[in-house]
């Protein structure tokens, strides 16, 4: 009697463990594919890209979609991702035409993230007094040098200065966390992850 209770108890525990494991496994799998349609090495094809490709093909086709059509879409997307990953590995991003696009995007991102969208009139007036008026009496300035007229240009100039400063600071931060070695008679000039 005791033995059967013991066996029953352990079978229940065993079944529960298997069920929990399966549940976790399924959930883990489902979570992996919430946003992605295909995982390829360290990259992925998003569901949005997959669905966009499916919609485009559906619109082009006169007949209903078949399995071969879906297979074609998945194959093409996988091929594109594989070529993209290969390109990254091979350093294609350093090719001038490609690098220019990426660098410009990065600079734009840094600028957007680190510069104010609008400057207050007080701030602009302060800059006006410091940089335009300097020590001259305000009344002596010609009409075209008035604050109201120069305000838009001051805002643009301020943004450019702020942008340039943000980029410089960002690059300094990048340099500090990088290893930059330059070649001069085979001696390393800069070294270490914190070279300054």
């Amino acid at each position: 009697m005791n033995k059967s209770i013991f066996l029953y108890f352990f079978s229940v525990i065993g079944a529960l463990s298997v069920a929990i494991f399966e549940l976790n496994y399924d959930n883990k799998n489902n979570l992996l594919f919430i946003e992605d349609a295909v995982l390829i090495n360290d990259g992925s094809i998003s569901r949005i890209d997959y669905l966009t490709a499916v919609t485009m093909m559906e619109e082009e086709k006169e007949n209903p979609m078949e399995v071969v059509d879906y297979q074609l879409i998945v194959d093409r997307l996988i091929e594109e991702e594989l070529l993209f990953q290969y390109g990254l590995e091979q350093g294609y991003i350093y090719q001038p035409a490609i690098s220019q696009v990426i660098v410009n995007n990065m600079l734009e991102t840094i600028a957007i993230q680190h510069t104010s969208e609008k400057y207050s009139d007080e701030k602009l007036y302060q800059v006006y007094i410091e940089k335009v008026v300097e020590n001259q009496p305000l009344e002596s300035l010609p009409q075209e040098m008035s604050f109201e007229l120069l305000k838009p240009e001051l805002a643009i100039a301020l943004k450019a200065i702020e942008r340039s400063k943000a980029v410089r600071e960002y690059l300094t931060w990048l340099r500090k966390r990088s290893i930059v070695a330059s070649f001069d008679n085979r001696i390393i000039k800069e070294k270490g992850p914190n070279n300054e």
Partner: protein
Amino acid sequence: MKYKLGLLVLFIIGILLAVLGSGADSSIRFEQFGFDHDNNDVLALVNQQPITKDELIHVRTKNPDLSFNDSLNLITDNYLLLQRAQELGLLQSDRVVRKAIVHSVVEQIVNKALNAQKMLSEEALLTRYQSFYFSNLAMFTTADQFQLQIANFDNDNEQCHLSLQARSKWQELPLNEERFQSLFVSQPLAKGLHSEILVHRQLGNRLATKVVAMTKGEFSDPIQTQTGCILMYLSDRKNGDVLPFEQVKEQVISQYRGILRRNALTDLLRSLRENAEIEIAPDIKEVLTNE
């Protein structure tokens, strides 16, 4: 006690040696950073990514006012930004960059395959083109042409039976088309020779496939169609000719290169696929396996 003291001394000596060792050779060797001794074109490394003389020349050509150091710094800054963009995964989501990289990879692979051909002598190339030509004669053959009459029996109740009778009658008699003009339908394929593509376009796949399989002077079996029963008579057929190599040499070269390009890309993709870990979402996998 003595034993513990000995251990302490050894520990201190170890620490001292480590400290001295770290400063013993302050000029770090290039190899540690991945410099290639034989490659004198490398000017600097940014996180192991080499800056070459060519790149410096490129930058200085575009910015002639920049000094050597400023140019090197500019490239270094660009490299750092590129590496940061990659680290942040910005390239993955940027469609323009993605397409540009993929396009560049394809172009380079294709060029590599074509450049390999340039290393061959003219004689060797000619042999390859000829061998390609003979292995793919169908590519360099003119298309078959067809002239077709169609007899329609759509006004009769026992159309197919009648058409079968008509067919045997025509086959028994020396065929004089004029005698049966009344049964032949007026349609574009009846006059002159036409390509297989046009036959397909006019008749659809089902009938065209039958026509292509017929020989000159042959009648088809009665065929039931939406408009009734028909008989097809292939009044003329001109089989395609293989064009001589000299005449299609340019076409051979173009096709050969096209296949070379495709093969180069297919080979690369095959090897990338073989070495990749690919996992498809279960719901999509289900769609792909549904027959």
